[in-house]
């Protein structure tokens, strides 16, 4: 029997979970809304969920802190999250699965064989490459070799969080374990990068819902991030943007501006250079995001953000490191340089605004480059 013949569609599974058609249609509508699709596309989602097979998912954990898994179970999407978990067939995930030891490695190998080329590989964390990969082992095998082995027959890879997408904290200088993100280790598979430390829960489920619904990867930007969630800077949609434009800034943690909720740019906020959905989707069921709570963004979805500190210093003070010949370094320097250029630009925008108070509606120019 071909794997596809024994697969169940999402609608089959929902029915098996006791979800009636009315709730199912409601779920499809809410999924469409979450993905920013028009109501006209709801029938397409309904059709996809009724006819497309469930995708087995192997969710590996490398050098990480499990914040991505924790974020995932916070998903606030309308249908109960246990159902969301079962829209996919989560066959391997050592944070949640009941089995342990050789039983779970057995499951991984079985799925790799039975669903060759069909399963989705989700990676949380990344692989240490120094000293033969001894800094992370599972079942006596290096995580590096597990990643390579499991990626070989995957349909596609979802790189959860900043670890898998960019390297994150363990790859910060001096990167003692030689931690490398998935894209630097696996080059022959489609990879969706979902950065953030962790990524927003609804972004995670939104990405999976997209893949499941359309049986295709979402449109990705040049860093491999889904455009639907990573195409805008937090600053562009920040609800405190009006204070930025008016030149009203928090200058100290306990000043009047802090109490009035003014712009946090001068306190180090990375919103102007961070591409993510915090200011639109928000965190934890729409409750808020760092800026709303009075905390500046630290840019956790951006490559190399750990080495772009101090977080409390505004971007204009970022010291540009020397450039050497490696492409990584040049990319890094470009990123930092664009941050500096941006800061200069922002300063001029504010200065102009302050000088030109009679014309507060003056449109902003796009600041800096991506």
């Amino acid at each position, binding site marked *: 029997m071909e794997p596809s013949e024994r697969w169940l569609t999402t609608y089959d599974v929902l029915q098996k979970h006791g979800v009636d058609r009315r709730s199912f249609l409601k779920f499809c509508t809410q999924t469409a809304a979450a993905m920013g699709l028009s109501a006209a596309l709801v029938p397409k989602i309904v059709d996809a969920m009724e006819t497309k097979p469930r995708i087995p998912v192997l969710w590996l954990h490398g050098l990480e802190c499990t914040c991505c898994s924790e974020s995932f179970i916070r998903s606030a999407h309308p249908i109960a999250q246990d159902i969301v978990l079962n829209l996919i067939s989560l066959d391997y995930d050592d944070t949640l699965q009941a089995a342990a030891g050789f039983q779970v490695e057995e499951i991984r190998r079985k799925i790799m064989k039975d669903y060759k080329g069909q399963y989705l590989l989700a990676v949380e964390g990344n692989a240490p490459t120094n000293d033969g990969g001894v800094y992370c082992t599972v*079942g006596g095998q290096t995580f590096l070799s597990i990643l390579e082995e499991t990626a070989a027959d995957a349909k596609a890879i979802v790189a959860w969080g900043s670890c898998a997408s960019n390297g994150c904290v363990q790859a910060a200088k001096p990167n003692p374990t030689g931690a490398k993100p998935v894209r630097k280790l696996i080059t022959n598979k489609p990879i969706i990068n979902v950065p953030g430390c962790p990524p927003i829960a609804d972004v995670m489920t939104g990405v999976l819902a997209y893949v499941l619904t359309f049986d295709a990867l979402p449109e990705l930007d040049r860093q491999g991030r889904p455009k639907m969630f990573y195409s805008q800077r937090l600053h562009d949609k920040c609800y405190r943007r009006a204070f930025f434009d008016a030149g009203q800034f928090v200058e100290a943690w306990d000043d009047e501006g802090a109490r009035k909720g003014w712009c946090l740019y001068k306190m180090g906020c990375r919103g102007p250079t961070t591409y993510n959905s915090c200011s639109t989707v928000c965190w934890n069921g729409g409750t808020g995001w760092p800026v709303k709570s009075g905390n500046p963004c630290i840019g956790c979805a951006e490559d190399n953000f750990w080495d772009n500190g101090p977080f409390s210093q505004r971007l204009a003070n970022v010291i540009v490191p020397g450039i050497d010949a490696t492409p990584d370094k040049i990319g890094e320097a470009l990123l930092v340089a664009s941050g500096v250029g941006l800061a200069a630009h922002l300063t001029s925008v504010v200065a102009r605004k302050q000088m030109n108070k009679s014309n507060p509606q003056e449109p902003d120019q796009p600041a800096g480059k991506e």
Partner: protein
Amino acid sequence: MATRVVVDPVTRIEGHLRVEAILDDKNVIGDAISSGTMWRGIEVILQGRDPRDAWAFCQRICGVCTTVHALASVRAVENALGITVPKNAEIIRNIMELTQYVQDHVIHFYHLHALDWVDVVSALKADPAATAALAQKVSPHWPTATTGYFSDVAATVKKFVESGQLGIFQNAYWGHPAYKLPPEANLMAVAHYLEALKWQKEIIKIHTVFGGKNPHPHYLVGGAASAINLNGDNAINVERLEFVHDLIKGAQQIVEGLYLPDLLAIASFYPEWTTYGGGLGNYMAYGDIPQNGVNDPAHFRFPRGVILNKNLAEVLPLDPTDTQQIQEEVAHSWYKYPNGTQGLHPSEGVTEVNYTGPNLPTRNWMKTTATRLSRRRVGKVTRWRLVHCRGC
């Protein structure tokens, strides 16, 4: 003849752990070795950083117990710089930390540990009416203890199991005689696993109010960034406080109405387990939830102290800054110290890798910790034991 059992990976934990047990011919564990099989080097990465940023690095030690490492880090920096945080910041931090305690306990019980005691497949045999009767007896204050509710959950479990795709529940020991719960108790626990899964994403909204997100809310050296302005619309005001208040009430309901009754009910089927474990009989807690600053442990809501050799009659004082009282050792770990294997206080700590291959006795990326030169246990059991002994 001795049998060696290896469990690697140990699942339903954060991080990477390997456990090996040596069983004798009567299947009794004579020796066991646990090894942390991951190292990221955060101690090394932190060196030379701006101390105001350290909390964010430390916080990434764990995303399940998010917040606590960040809090420990900001306190360490404040201790070094002689900073006393404002009273409101202390209250906000206490609320955030207690939020974490409560969420983490419930998650650990239902979503991480419960599957070792609860047989999901056995729940299929349960009678919903009998389950409702059991639930009304066990947790009389929980509103969903009805036959209809448990019939729905039973139908969900039945259809799920019959689909043949067990996902995270596959390949486990369902049906093993070591599972002692009757089907009704299993069904009740499975239903509450789902209830708790829905609830855990609510309680942590408290972190979002004060720290902007969860996991990994933001912290600030010197206090708390979330400004309070009871007459403002863009800071912590009455609406935000009432929101937090409501979430706390919800947490009380689930802890008192569901979690504690379930814990006691399930434990009653496993009385022999109360005789296992306990470690070496040495327990240590730093204590926490300060009412008058972190330098005044006498006014902590959770007391500080050390118990040695199971002597519950005497709680010894603990000074975390005393280099002799708290030490880390590397004799069984893949690290080396400049002066041999003598333990070091964390303030003098050294993390220098010395990988010697996978052979015993050195096989661990975790250091060993000691209190007053004794191996000791920390965590929730210890915290409770000290509260008990101190009569708080």
